[in-house]
């Protein structure tokens, strides 16, 4: 019987090809959308982690309460001991101190007078150690556009866009005007070693990267750092583990009455992305639900059209003694076959497109000119194991629902009318 149904299914394109194409198209969109959202979300999480918060982040309790203002007067001190302790206790992460700061970058002329000036936001990181995780996390080597990487104290990197705006070349001098952690004015002369382009709008517009020791000296923060960030060694954000580490650290170190006691936060809490991540998660679910419902309606209509075309066949089958349930079940089996085949094809196409965009990406830089979101200018899809599965949910469910709803008509068919109906 299955062979008989299969023959009919393959020979009648309106029963097979049309629903197959609908399922394949819907599944392809679902798979691609999922991979795209995953990629965009992952890109945002990665950029935020790499350039701002790490996967987990230690700062003083007071600093954490005003972290968006980068209050370096509330920074951590005696960080060497703390970093060592973190490296020993939580070995599945890299730990590295950072100082985030703001200020003015002054470009002097040959007489030492101000030629150009621009507000900058910078980070002081460990640039001079070859085994520093920052090389990888900030993607510094591939980001270098002109000049060279800093090799000694007093050298900094400047965003390529900012360098062009200030008309400076690698090798030129620049003075950073900022404040010390005690609130007094600070000046520090740097040599621009090179220019970098990170592909992240806010970084490319105004970022400078200096060595941590230089910034400690410039800001009078010996043994100090605004934050100690931790990165999982596989560079993936493991939320449960991050929460567990943060809980463990805070139980051992946080003293509620001491505003300078260290506190650890996770990417979700420190970045303020918690609500956003929840929103995106819910949004993905909503989109998938809409797809399932929309595809079910389309397939229901396809099923109804097919049932109308097969009105005579179904009538004949009922007349010659096929039980109603058997007719219904055979239609469900057909829909299952179409659903599986369409889902497989749709998944294959969706994954192929997603993979292409994972490799080549899609440049949204022109749309992000004024954006302050830490998201890469090139959005890439992300193919993950779930990408191969997710399309089967709407693909099979919608086909089944469509066939199940349209097939109810079989039960409403009155056998007493079959002779008349089959005469037309």
């Amino acid at each position, binding site marked *: *019987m299955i062979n*008989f149904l299969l*023959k*009919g299914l393959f*020979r*009648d394109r309106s029963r097979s090809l049309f629903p197959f194409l609908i399922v394949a198209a819907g599944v392809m969109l679902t798979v691609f959308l999922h991979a795209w959202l995953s990629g965009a979300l992952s890109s945002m999480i990665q950029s935020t982690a790499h350039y701002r918060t790490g996967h987990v982040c230690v700062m003083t309790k007071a600093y954490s309460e005003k972290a968006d203002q980068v209050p370096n007067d509330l920074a951590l001190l005696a960080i060497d001991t703390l970093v060592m302790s973190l490296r020993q206790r939580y070995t599945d992460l890299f730990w590295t101190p950072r100082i985030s700061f703001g200020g003015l970058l002054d470009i002097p002329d040959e007489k030492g007078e101000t030629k150009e000036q621009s507000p900058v936001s910078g980070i002081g990181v460990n640039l001079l150690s070859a085994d520093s995780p920052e090389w990888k996390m900030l993607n510094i080597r591939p980001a270098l556009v002109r000049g060279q990487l800093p090799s000694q104290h007093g050298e900094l990197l400047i965003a390529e866009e900012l360098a062009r705006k200030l008309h400076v070349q690698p090798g030129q001098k620049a003075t950073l005007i900022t404040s010390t952690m005690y609130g007094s004015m600070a000046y520090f002369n740097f040599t621009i070693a090179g220019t970098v382009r990170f592909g992240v709008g806010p970084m490319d517009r105004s970022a400078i990267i200096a060595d941590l020791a230089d910034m400690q000296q410039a800001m009078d923060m010996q043994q100090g750092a605004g934050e100690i960030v931790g990165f999982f060694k596989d560079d993936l954000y493991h939320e449960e583990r991050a929460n567990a580490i943060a809980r463990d650290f805070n139980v051992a170190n946080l003293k509620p009455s001491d505003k300078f006691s260290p506190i650890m936060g996770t990417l979700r809490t420190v970045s303020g992305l918690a609500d956003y991540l929840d929103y995106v998660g819910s949004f993905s679910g909503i989109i998938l639900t809409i797809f399932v419902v929309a595809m079910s309606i389309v397939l229901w209509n396809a099923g109804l059209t097919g049932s109308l075309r097969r009105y*005579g*066949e179904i*009538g*004949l*089958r*009922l*007349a*010659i*003694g*096929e*039980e*109603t*349930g*058997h007719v219904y079940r055979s239609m469900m089996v057909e829909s299952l076959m179409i659903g599986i085949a369409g889902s497989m094809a749709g998944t294959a196409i969706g994954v192929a497109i997603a993979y292409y965009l994972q490799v080549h990406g899609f440049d949204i830089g022109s749309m992000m000119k004024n954006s302050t979101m830490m998201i890469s200018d090139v959005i890439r899809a992300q193919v993950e194991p779930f990408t191969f599965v997710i399309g089967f949910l709407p693909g099979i469910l919608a086909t089944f629902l469509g066939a199940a709803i349209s097939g109810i008509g079989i039960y409403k068919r009155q*056998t*007493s009318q*079959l*002779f*008349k109906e*089959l*005469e*037309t």
Partner: protein
Amino acid sequence: MAPRTHSTTPETKNSTLIRTENLDKIYPLGLNTLKALNHVNLSISKGEFLGLVGPSGSGKTTLLNIIGSLDSPTSGSAEVLGRKIESLSHNDAARLRNKHIGFIFQTYNLLPVYTVFENVEFPLLLLGIDSSLRKIRVMDALEWVGLADRADSKPAQLSGGQSQRVAIARAIVKRPELVLADEPTANLDAENSHHIMKTMQQLNKDLATTFVFATHDEKVIGYVRRKISLVDGRIEKDEKQPRR
């Protein structure tokens, strides 16, 4: 070619295949009702070649529906192959049709995506008959109707007469005790009608299958050996006819 075997069910040992007693069928018609069958008393024996004749609305198709377990009576009784139609469940009625009754329709109703062989094979698939036996039975049935050489053709490649012969093969392939045909020649010309009726006469003779036709086609009426005339849901005349 002569048929090889003919299955015998317990019901067919009794020579009466169909019996109706005070059979009524009433349809609601807006606020009123329409009495399609009115106290029909009828007995049809095994092997009969019988025509239900009458004008449109006389109750021919309604009676055929009830005999074929496609409908149930409003009152009275209809017994077909020993089963009370009025007490059959939906699935029991389907099983009765599946095993014991063949249907021939005015418009053939062949499945267009399947070959002639597959169209005829379909009822045997529903009965769960083994593949090798199915092949023998299908080819037998196609030989009876003279279409063995068109087994691989699609319905669209056949003439009207050939299509109806395939429909006959489909009706008799499972060797039913009873074949019901509603206006089987209405779409055919005189020559094809003659061939169709001759084919069915031969099958009636060779297989002892009972044929019941609902028709108002004079070409068919000439071939039946018993003619039951219906008028306004009542049997007006029940007469034997000479063999043609």
